[in-house]
């Protein structure tokens, strides 16, 4: 079949690293997060890094849903906000209880004497944690089934998800019982731990760091599994997958739900770490910001979204200290350059440079077999690795 030889297979840096490199990577990340960062960063900077880790947790989910599943999740603020507000309500109730007040401080200022009924379940830490872990995912399952079964995709899905994040932000602004546009803030304790104690704040950072490592491990497993291969197939050829007997909607709902769950967890961690949650943390702008880090880092890789999110958040906070108004332009310019010239994100930079460096080199390829049907003799069964 000499007429049909393919082009040489391009050796590519694997998007998901193998077991050895993964083990080394996790060990390195653990050392950096649990030993180096607390040693070299001030308490304030460590808290900032903790906030960035929350964004990274959201980003890991977006990497799965968008990078691998092709769903442009422009509205993760919705799920982030759900997790955050649920946690914030619990913290406010717990603070009031510690001080012996009937209602959280901002409610008594507003003259409210009784805790509203829909707040009451969140007095329980168990209920709070369950809602944080399950509610965003449950909403994502319902939304996902409605949207994907009707074959809504592409820009329509992106606009829809963004509209939902905007709707949540708008709704919260009107809710005096959620602090309106000021949001909920001034949290004093976290499950009984005093939040003004630096040791406890460090513990919070460790919780965020540990959560991020678990989230990355989950995403890695999903990417390497058969499901991960199927998800890429759905991203690239949704209709074709249908003709192989799968319902692509179900495949997409899984990734969307995982991403939503991660966003909700990140929101719940964000609240005690940062000390405030307001509508401006859950609306359109933060939803887009989540995405920018993912795009710049490299959306279809395992670590690109995580490192991109941390890097962008870090750059934002340090550059906006020196040039308060310039950062927005720098971020926009970076986004345009990456999307326009490096669609695979910074993670693909190495591969692009390598290809530039040695364009002539090609990996030798094997001659393809002929179909067994035209062989003159029965082919020997060779073990396939």
């Amino acid at each position: 079949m000499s007429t049909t030889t393919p082009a040489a297979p391009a050796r590519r840096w694997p998007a998901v690293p193998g077991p050895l490199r993964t083990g080394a990577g996790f060990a390195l990340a653990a050392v950096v997060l649990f030993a180096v960062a607390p040693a070299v960063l001030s308490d304030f900077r460590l808290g900032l890094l903790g906030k960035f880790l929350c964004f990274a947790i959201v980003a890991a989910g977006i990497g799965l849903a968008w990078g691998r599943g092709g769903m442009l999740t422009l509205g993760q603020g919705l799920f982030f906000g759900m997790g955050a507000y649920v946690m914030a309500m619990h913290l406010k109730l717990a603070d009031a209880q510690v001080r012996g007040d009937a209602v959280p401080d901002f409610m008594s200022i507003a003259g409210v004497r009784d805790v509203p009924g829909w707040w009451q379940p969140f007095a329980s830490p168990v209920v709070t944690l369950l809602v944080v872990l399950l509610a965003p995912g449950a909403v994502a399952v319902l939304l996902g089934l409605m949207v994907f079964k009707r074959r809504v995709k592409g820009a329509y899905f992106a606009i829809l998800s963004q509209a939902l994040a905007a709707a949540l932000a708008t709704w919260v602004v009107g809710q005096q019982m959620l602090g309106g546009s000021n949001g909920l803030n001034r949290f004093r304790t976290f499950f009984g731990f005093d939040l003004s104690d630096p040791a406890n704040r460090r513990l919070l950072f460790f919780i965020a760091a540990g959560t991020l490592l678990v989230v990355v491990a989950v995403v890695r497993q999903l990417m390497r599994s058969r499901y991960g291969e199927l998800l890429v197939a759905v991203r690239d050829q949704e209709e074709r997958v249908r003709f192989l007997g799968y319902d692509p909607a179900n495949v997409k709902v899984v990734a969307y739900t995982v991403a939503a769950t991660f966003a909700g967890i990140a929101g719940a961690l964000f609240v005690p770490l940062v000390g405030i949650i307001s509508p401006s943390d859950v609306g359109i702008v933060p939803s887009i910001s989540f995405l920018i880090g993912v795009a710049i880092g490299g959306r279809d890789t395992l670590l690109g979204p995580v490192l991109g999110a941390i890097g962008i958040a870090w750059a934002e906070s340090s550059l906006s200290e020196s040039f308060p108004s310039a950062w927005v332009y720098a971020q926009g310019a970076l986004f345009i350059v990456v999307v326009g010239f490096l669609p695979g994100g910074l993670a693909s930079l190495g591969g692009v440079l390598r290809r530039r460096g040695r364009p002539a080199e090609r990996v030798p390829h094997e001659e393809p077999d002929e179909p067994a049907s035209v062989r003159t003799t029965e082919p020997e069964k060779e073990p396939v690795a």
Partner: protein
Amino acid sequence: MSTHTPSTRTERDPLFGGNAGMGSEYLEVRGLSVTFDGFKAVQDVDLTLLQGDLRFLIGPNGAGKTTVIDAITGLVPATGKVNKSGTQLLGRKTHQIARSGVGRTFQTASVFEELTVLQNLDIAAGAGRSPWTMLRRRPGVEPRIAEVLDTIGLASLAEVRAGILAHGQKQWLEIGMLLVGNADVLLLDEPVAGMSKEEREQTGQLLRRIGAERTVVVVEHDMDFMRQFATSVTVLARGRVIAEGSVAEVQADPRVQEVYLGTTAAAEYTAEIGGA
């Protein structure tokens, strides 16, 4: 190009009317009609397809060949009846029809280009896998996938990204994807379009091999290819079946000749008839 004569046939070759006797799997289409905005693309099509019959579906452009396949596989809404060995297919969802064993390919090869040949086949083989299996890694190559890799001649390219396969190889991969999915009705839409002569020959042999145990329908424009490999032929024109039978019967049918006259294929077709 030796044509198969009855004396050289083995028992498992595709045969006119099928080769499986009374226990045959079948696909029975009755009164199939498809209407697009008032335009009747397919009208009252009846087809009876038996296991082991390599059926070719031919006809001029716009005859409704692809639409018939689209209707059977649930891509376009249709009226009528499609019965696969006792199961009604019309009205079911695309993926349910696929799961019942009806597989199809498309005019343009649509493999998953970012995935390897092996990953493509593994996905095609896995519609019935449990969630638990899906969430784990692919442990190795399943025997049925290794077998199909051999059948379609891509065993040495198993780890190659499907996007860089040659056109013919992509079509073989598509056929392989139907085989590992245990489809027993294969609807192939112009599988040899754009292939070299050599590739056509190989594809034809492949179809004969797989057609022996399955019901295979091939939509084709290439008359040479049809004459060489078809065991039976259905001719569509303007959405209707105008002739059906063996290659010789169909070629001798005056209605078929009439349909092809006046079209661009006419000169070629009459020349072919003269040469045949």
